[in-house]
């Protein structure tokens, strides 16, 4: 029964932290769900209302929380199926058709498991750590759009916020590993912190380059700039951004501790790393935040490089986009865009699983030298290259859009 307040407090903290920055920096014009309300209900005031902003953010928090739970249920099943089929096995087949309900059964099993706190552990930190890890992952979802208008809070520092707040999760991991009072946990913790802090650098440089090209850090505006044909996506904008998108995908694998960078929880070396001592619902929180982080990095990749909610075919993207289009067309367009964005992100999650079951784990020194000697110099060169490209090729292509495929139009 101890699990229920744990879950509630996790949800509460996440809701509060996710909306606090958004409300504090709330601008004169509404954004996100409030703008959606404005678009559908014409009597709603144009400058927005404070209760509308709070209600929109509460709804957004609950919706994101529900989405993450559903996504984790699906992704755990998908992971087991992908691994099974790659190894010529069937995977879970018993509960439901092709085992789709297996994760629900596993989840129930996890919640009723005995909740063990080691006698020599630092009890308070041990209990707080999973909440901080989950909160640290969950608050990063605030500026991540799930479709046009469907965003918890359209911060004008969106990408920077995602990069900055990620460090809270590292602290939660340190707290978990330290309070467990177990040497494997501590080794796992030190590895995790090293890895996540190091790989934040290439990710940050990739974000900076996207911001230089887009001229903004807001996730919504970045997606807006990739409208039109799919060669307007930032990944096809210039060769440097194409390289950076690959660097981002590699670094994001390390950022969410996925294989081949799963040193922090290397089963054959460290039992299971920083969460060795955790059982039951507390372990489930770590597990949930791992899968949430997988979706997060994929969603950010889609927003920053792969066109966000745009399919890249203007006929489809324009459905319901005109300001005078009917409410029905608008909602249909909204649903299409949400499906496109989530579909792309889930596709990238599949790539992560594919990589996990294909490549062996790297060594610790290989992991560090890959980051600092390979990814970092290349990404810095790409930052300069991309800025120069925008400076010179922009005038050459004579237009607002200067993709490297501008000659196609």
């Amino acid at each position, binding site marked *: 029964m101890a699990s229920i307040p744990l879950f509630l407090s996790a949800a509460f903290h996440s809701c509060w932290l996710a909306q606090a*920055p958004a409300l504090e920096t709330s601008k004169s014009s509404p954004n996100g769900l409030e703008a959606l309300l404005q678009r559908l209900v014409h009597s709603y005031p144009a400058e927005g209302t404070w209760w509308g902003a709070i209600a929109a953010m509460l709804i957004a928090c609950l919706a994101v929380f529900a989405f993450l739970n559903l996504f984790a249920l699906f992704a755990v099943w998908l992971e087991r199926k992908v691994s099974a089929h790659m190894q010529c096995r069937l995977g879970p087949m018993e509960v439901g058709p092709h085992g789709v309900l297996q994760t629900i059964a596993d989840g129930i099993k996890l919640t009723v498991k005995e909740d063990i706190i080691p006698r020599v552990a*630092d009890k308070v930190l041990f209990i707080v750590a999973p909440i901080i890890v989950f909160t640290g992952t969950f608050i990063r979802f605030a500026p991540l759009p799930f479709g046009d208008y469907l965003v918890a809070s359209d911060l004008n520092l969106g990408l920077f*916020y995602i990069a900055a707040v990620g460090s809270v999760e590292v602290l939660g991991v340190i707290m978990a590993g330290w309070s467990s009072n177990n040497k494997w946990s501590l080794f796992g913790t030190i590895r995790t912190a090293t890895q996540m802090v190091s790989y934040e650098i290439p990710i940050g440089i990739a974000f900076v380059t996207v911001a230089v090209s887009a001229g903004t850090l807001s996730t919504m505006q970045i997606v807006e700039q990739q409208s039109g044909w799919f060669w307007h996506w930032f990944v096809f904008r210039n060769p440097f951004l194409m390289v950076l998108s690959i660097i981002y995908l590699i670094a994001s694998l390390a950022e969410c501790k996925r294989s081949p960078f799963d040193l922090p929880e290397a089963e054959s070396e460290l039992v299971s790393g920083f969460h060795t001592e955790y059982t039951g619902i507390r372990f489930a929180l770590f597990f949930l935040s791992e899968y949430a982080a997988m979706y997060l990095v994929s969603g950010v990749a889609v927003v920053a490089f792969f066109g966000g909610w745009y399919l890249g075919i203007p006929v489809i993207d324009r459905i319901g986009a005109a300001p005078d289009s009917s409410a029905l067309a608008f909602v249909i367009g909204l649903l299409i865009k949400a499906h496109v964005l989530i579909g792309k992100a889930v596709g990238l999650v599949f790539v992560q699983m594919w990589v996990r079951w294909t490549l062996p784990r790297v060594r610790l020194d290989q992991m560090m030298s890959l980051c600092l000697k390979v990814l970092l110099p290349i990404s810095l060169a790409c930052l300069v290259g991309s800025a120069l490209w925008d400076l010179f090729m922009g005038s050459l292509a004579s237009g607002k859009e200067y993709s490297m495929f501008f000659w196609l139009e």
Partner: protein
Amino acid sequence: MTGSGIFNQVMFWLFAVMAVAPGFGILLAKDIVRQAFWLLLSLVGFAGLYLHLGADFLGFIQVLVYIGGILILFLFGVMLTYRMDVPLKEVKGWGLVFPGIIAGILTASALLYVASRTPWNAAAKATAPTVSAVGSRVMSTFILPFEVISMVLLVALIGATYIARRKEDKGRSEE
């Protein structure tokens, strides 16, 4: 008072208490790691206060630099050098109470003096995004301090690498 006004007040006091109250935790905690995590709470409170004042970029920089950088570095140092079963050295007796009170009064009066002499300009809450303004000022008006700071940091980085590398080489030659 309008609803948003009450909301602003609530948020301010929430962040203010969050920024100041963990100070007691830092002072009273027996374990250095616990102190670090009290500091985390305090830093988050300060970030919230910056956001409350409309300095969104500064608030997130606070999170990135202090929580993501300095606090993690601090914990790294503790973890690599410190054992959990050894508590902080406890000061017994009342020997430090009197000097502590004097130091506290002096510090508080100095701070109060500075605070009372400062001309507080209640600027209108910034509603526009601050990051582009900060960026263009750093790249134009404050370009020289910016470059000097980056040189200083580079020197520190090279120095740290040199010291770490020298120790490693010495250890190897002794073997």
